[in-house]
């Protein structure tokens, strides 16, 4: 009777120690600010995670080393248009251009939801984006610089009941307020052709598979069927424009600028 008890109690003690150790480890990595932000997000889209999911939310709160969602993103966001009645719709097929302080330029193409992103892997060996960043969407330059935020939604916060309670002057359609630039809104009628990028190449016509189609030189995927580049296209050339028509691998990959592959 005595021996089993002693074994049980030492097992319990070891288990207790392990629990305490685990708690300590978790505690060390615990960041209440991010945790709270992530928990406040609306629930996952019915279709589950995809490149089009969670439009308007702060992508990199989750797609970060801390929260660990894959792929790890360097930057991400959602571009909208606004209807006459004020409703927001994701804008598909426009370039988002990010210029970093080291002189690198990255381009990404918005998908069906208006989402775009540049993965850490897209940075091609460069450790990280050099902040501050300059942003341009479909040719419209953002006046503000980005100091350190990787999610557009970190500054472009949408409207929410909670936020309207705090700031009665908040624009209920766009979310623009005392502390938010509101949704990123462009007019899809006035997107220059060089700033357009196409949906994924149609496999029946291009046969290029995940490699993306060859783009007409400098067209940047101007035609809806011709060029590759849905999901995310990034180009790390310092020249920026003209690096269009990059390749994508299954709607989220990376295409080097200037005609490769």
């Amino acid at each position, binding site marked *: 009777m005595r021996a089993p008890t002693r074994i049980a109690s030492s097992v319990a003690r070891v288990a207790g120690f392990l629990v305490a150790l685990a708690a300590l480890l978790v505690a060390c990595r615990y960041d209440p600010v991010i945790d709270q932000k992530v928990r406040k997000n609306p629930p996952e889209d019915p279709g589950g995670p995809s490149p089009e999911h969670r439009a308007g939310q702060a992508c990199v709160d989750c797609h970060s080393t801390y929260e660990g969602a894959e792929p790890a993103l360097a930057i991400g966001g959602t571009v909208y248009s606004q209807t006459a009645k004020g409703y927001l719709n994701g804008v598909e097929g426009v370039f988002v251009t990010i210029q970093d302080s080291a002189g690198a330029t990255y381009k990404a193409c918005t998908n069906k939801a208006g989402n775009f992103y540049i993965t850490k892997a897209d940075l091609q060996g460069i450790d990280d984006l050099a902040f501050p960043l300059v942003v341009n969407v479909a040719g419209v330059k953002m006046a503000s610089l980005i100091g350190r935020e990787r999610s557009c939604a970190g500054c472009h916060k949408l409207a929410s009941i909670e936020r309207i309670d705090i700031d009665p002057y908040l624009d209920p359609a766009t979310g*623009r307020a005392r502390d938010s630039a509101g949704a990123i809104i462009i007019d899809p009628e006035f997107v220059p052709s060089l700033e357009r990028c196409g949906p994924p190449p149609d496999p029946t016509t291009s046969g290029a598979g995940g490699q993306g189609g060859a783009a007409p030189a400098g067209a940047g995927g101007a035609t809806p069927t011709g060029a590759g580049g849905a999901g995310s296209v990034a180009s790390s050339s310092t020249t920026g424009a003209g690096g269009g028509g990059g390749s994508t691998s299954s709607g989220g990959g990376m295409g080097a600028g200037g005609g490769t592959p």
Partner: protein
Amino acid sequence: MNAQGVFGISSFAAFVAVAALTGCKQELSSGLEVTCPSRQVYVQHVSEVMERRCGTLDCHGSDFRPLRILGRDGLRHQGERKRTGEGVTTDAEKSANYYAVCAVEPEKVSKVGSDPGGNAVNTLLLVRKGRGQEGHKGGKVFDPWDDADRCVVGWLRGDTEQSIEKACKAALAKLP
């Protein structure tokens, strides 16, 4: 013996208590006076540089930062009905920025003003953080004696308005 020990302790305690009280009393009665460099120069030339480079919504344009910088493309003044990106940076916002910057280290800033040629300016937290010489989430924002640095430091030292204006304008022109 015993009595003396007790006496010793209590006299020490009394000494500490008196010292502490006089310490407080002195500080309160000495009429702490704080001066900050020109408000007009800050509002007219320096504020915009700090709004653009320090006051973005993800940095000092946030209620959650100890040093808050307000402005058109950042956090707006609580008492005004303006949204980010609307209109221009208001006088109230520029003025609030002035007081925020002066309040980081008020006594030290006063000393810089009274010794413009001295080294004191290089020891200010505001300057050291901007130069990335002190822990700063935003990293290095100014290089010592580049235009933006001369804009802010020149104002702190009380340089001529003309030279401050020139440095601030050059700093703005260099921003991407």
